[in-house]
């Protein structure tokens, strides 16, 4: 193979930086319950305290420890990113490979459907769906997968079309291999780079959407989220007239930015040519 393998691509400065950021947040999410001084729903002290020893980042307007919320927020973001990107990957790959390999009328119908899906402005539709559904983390994940799979299907299908007419696939087919065998042995393994890119891109989209929806007030109130932390911080009227923005607003926003940046760097290193 002339192409660089996934691990070779990750060994660039950008790939390593991205991996370090990602590992940092995974560590943060995994050890949240050990590191956090309080429980995620504890009202631990007076509201609006500045940072001190008991509260490294002070407390918010109802007296919750901001540092604890920040730690648990990483769990919500990473869970949503993980489930949504895998959901999109599975459905997108399945439909993309089917459509690309079979070709013909089913391919045309499926891709027309994908085109239509891709053109619908998603945020207004998400708001409509959310207005009818209950605010729960699983509904958000469901909506994000529902509106995300066409992107995955599109790229997978394009690559499958290219692979289907390549020499080794033709040879396997002529030698009498059945469609499921060819797909399993010769198509899907060559789709791995695209799959990893899909995972990274969908994670970015999921993290930004989840925090954005939480910011707009569609979040699941029982899961701490960086987006809703920003929402509550700026709805506190004095936020910009005191120093509270430094430990209330800034850390949550920085966390989202950093996590997304980690994925962006990973994505850039995977696409190689940067």
């Amino acid at each position: 193979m002339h192409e660089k393998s996934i691990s070779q691509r990750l060994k660039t400065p950008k790939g390593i930086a991205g991996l370090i950021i990602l590992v940092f947040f995974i560590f943060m999410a995994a050890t949240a319950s050990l590191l956090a001084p309080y429980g995620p729903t504890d009202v631990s002290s007076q509201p609006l305290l500045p940072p001190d020893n008991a509260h490294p980042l002070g407390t918010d307007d109802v007296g919750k420890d901001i540092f604890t919320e920040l730690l648990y927020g990483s769990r919500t973001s990473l869970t949503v990113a993980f489930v949504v990107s895998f959901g999109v990957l599975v459905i997108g790959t399945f439909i993309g490979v089917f459509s690309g390999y079979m070709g013909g009328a089913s391919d045309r119908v499926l891709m027309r459907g994908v085109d239509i899906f891709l053109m619908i402005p998603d945020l207004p539709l998400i708001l409509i769906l959310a207005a009818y559904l209950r605010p729960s983390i699983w509904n958000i994940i469901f909506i994000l997968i529902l509106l995300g799979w066409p992107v995955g299907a599109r790229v997978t299908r394009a690559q499958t079309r290219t692979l289907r007419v390549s020499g080794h696939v033709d040879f396997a087919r002529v030698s009498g291999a059945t469609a499921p065998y060819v797909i399993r042995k010769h198509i899907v393994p060559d789709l791995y780079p695209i799959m990893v890119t899909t995972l990274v891109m969908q994670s970015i989209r999921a993290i930004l959407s989840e925090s954005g929806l939480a910011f707009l007030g569609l979040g699941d109130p029982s899961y701490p989220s960086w987006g809703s932390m920003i929402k509550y911080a700026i709805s506190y009227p004095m936020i910009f007239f005191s120093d509270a923005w430094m430990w209330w607003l800034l850390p949550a926003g920085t966390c989202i930015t950093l996590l997304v940046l980690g994925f962006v760097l990973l994505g850039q290193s995977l696409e190689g040519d940067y």
Partner: protein
Amino acid sequence: MLNRVQWGHVFSRGLEYVLTFFIILTVNFFLPRFMPGGPLLSILGSQNADLPVVIDEETKYKLMDYYHLNDPLHLQFVHYLRDAVHLDFGYSISYNIPVLDVVLGRLPWTLLLMGTALLLSTMLGIFLGLESSWKRGQRIDSLLLITVPLFRSVPVFFLGTLLIFFFGYRMGFFPVSGAVTPYMDYQGSLSVAKDIISHLVLPLTCLTAFEMPGTYLLVRNVCSQQFERPYILMDIARGLKDRHVKSHILLNSIVPIVNQVAAMLGFMVGGAVFVETIFSYPGMGLLVYNSFIERDYPVLQGAFVFISFFVLAGNYAADIICSYIDGRSGQE
């Protein structure tokens, strides 16, 4: 102008857009009917609420009749489509005026904000992307490749908040909410324009920063592919100036760029919802957000139809422009 093959292409694309719009209308029709709760719930409120609206069976029946809800589903659908063609999307629950009037009042502001942002971000994206691909692998390219994605990583609502804080509160350069100063006593049209522009600056910056990185990466990608083409070698061999070679590259990549920028319109609408919400800019985005918070279903759905229409129209316009620029389109 366009030849016959191209007209055929434009026409068949048009049919596809009409079909897409019809599907969006259908989704819009069936969504509330398949959701739990029933259509009258939004009028009556939940019966488990603290103050349930007490309503007798006869009034209920009359209400259902008034909204054609006693008809079979397919008749309801025909009614709905007929109303939609007449731009009748019902009455807003919270404003108590027709949805059309609410939407029409908001539309100009969104067109102003999104149109300017689209223009700015596309120009900036093309400029930076072309420059970046021209100097591939050099210092300026790697610098742009690190800083531009950073903009992409900052969530747009956080960026907006920071802009409000630094330029609105700390420095006091620009007003941070609304589109005009309320009850302002204007001295001539110049002061009106000044007021509108000063309100536009921060949301515009925010939306442009949201949209630009995507365009930049796209332009860089498309233009980079041009460098292997023989005509570039020929250009250089002929000793053309850099800016002439660049204009050749841009002309050859403009079709995918126009197409892709139009395809990102739906995504940009999402950005506009956040930006307008943060800056209280009275456009469609804020309308969608407010009607979501107030559960003003007719407005929410009417606004969705209008937004979809404009996004589809934008895509169609891009298709027509592309077949005008590129004589080959529709001939595959």
